[in-house]
């Protein structure tokens, strides 16, 4: 099965991935993705009817705890790495105009 990745698909994946690719990168991404998907298609040789998808190898359960605050105010530390901050908050660019 040969996969064909269209320009629209690459555009769409770029939106999902929040990546801005230039034309050369888009072309390369198309080729790379096509060959990877062709390769991944090998999995279709295996019959997986009635096989449950396995996300974790052991049963994983939610870890609950009492709703009690255990940490202290760490605002200064948390903001230390922020590219921009204002009044003790993360500063984000304009979200609508």
């Amino acid at each position: 099965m040969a996969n064909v990745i269209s320009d629209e698909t690459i555009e769409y994946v770029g939106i999902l991935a929040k990546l801005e690719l230039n034309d050369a990168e888009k072309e390369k991404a198309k080729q790379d993705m096509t060959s990877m998907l062709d390769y991944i298609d090998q999995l279709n040789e295996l019959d997986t009817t009635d096989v449950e998808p396995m996300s974790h190898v052991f049963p994983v359960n939610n870890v609950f705890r009492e709703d009690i605050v255990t940490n202290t105010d760490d605002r200064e530390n948390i903001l230390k790495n922020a590219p921009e901050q204002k009044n003790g908050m993360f500063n984000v660019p304009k979200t609508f105009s």
Partner: protein
Amino acid sequence: MDILDYTAVELAGRIKKKEVSVKDAVMAVLDRIDKTENELNCYVTIDRDGALMSAEEVQKKIDRGEFAGPLAGVPVAIKDNMCTDGMLTTCSSKILSNFVPAFSSQAVVNLKEAGAVIIGKTNMDEFAMGSTTETSYYGATKNPWNTDHVPGGSSGGSAAAVAANECYYALGSDTGGSIRQPAAYCGVVGMKPTYSTVSRYGLIAYGSSLDQIGPICKDVTDCATILEVISTYDPKDATSVKRQDTDFTSALIDDVKGMKIGVPKDYFGDGMDEEVKDAVLRAAEVLKSKGAVIEEFELSLVKYAIPAYYTIASAEASSNLERFDGIKYGYRTNEYEGLHQMYKKTRSEGFGPEVKRRIMLGSFVLSSGYYDAYYLKALKVKALIKKAFDEAFSKYDVILGPVAPGVAPKLGESLCDPIKMYLGDIDTISANLAGLPGISLPCGISKNGLPIGLQLMGDCFKEKNIIRAAYAYEQARGKFGREDR
């Protein structure tokens, strides 16, 4: 004997007996770094002042008897995807080029509580995506055995640093072989424990259902000792399992009589280097001569592990790496109009080509219309692979095979063809999909002077079987180092 030649456990013993001071050990490592680091590039960050200060504090605590464990005072290097409080943590990416965490990963906390002295942060493939350490934003690391060759990856900096005596041991992380393969390429010991054994808290995530932290070190004794220290239950990692059997050093027993060892024929197929094959089969003979029962068998499904892995790992990566948005930490692009363009430009400028490739693939296989055909299909194949291992481990205590089909390739040979590079992961990747522990240790040297690795895999939570087999093999093999070339 040069104090750099001690293993971590030997060094800690000498420090305890006051034959060597912690400062002596740190100075010896820093001197070695001065000599070889320019050529090898094992580290992204070297914290000289911090290490020397910490050496004094640790020495005091050893003298007072507060640090009495088997690693107290030993200099360690940490892969740069584990957060270290106050120390730059880049994941070898531009996007984290200025990130100084305000907390440490749990594995690092455990080491510090055992008296470790952190020398610095080791180079890696960007976000652990790669098999050669060449995708690092900070330049490739070179193999200390031959600097024309790669050290393997993604924990290439950690493995090269141990091989070059630029530290006594290191932590690595293994998502598809990233501890075991560089350990093999650099002639040192590396182990990925059972998934959920070492807390992933503070490990910058790549494929969360596959990632595990583990030791890279000089011998099997160090390996069991380090693993014992870092394996603790941690409520901060929701997948952490409460284990009562983390006394791994109790398995350092030179006896494999009656141990059942399976050798999967499928691991010795096409594309396998003859020298590697011979060295690995000779190691099996050594264990046989010590009383182990060796049997060849068909594991099946081996070739499907790679496409299943790259689907799952890329899917998880695309989701995990959404957090790098230029708002909370890390790099932010200089010029932008509005929020969305800032996101896109920041990420496009901050991530390298291999990371972008996997984010794109992962976003695609998770997108509506393709989710069932690719992502769910891969999870079903994962279930089949796990079942094949369950069957194998109903017959065998240990599975023995190569770590990689060949020895370390030359720099620049791997990156041009991604699929070819991914094929090199064929012997290690299944252990991650099935959650199994695996150890890599040297078992020979190729004609061109590069080390060859032996891999031993065990069933989930059966690290002790592989530690025991590895230890018994190591006792028969004897010392192994670059001077033996």
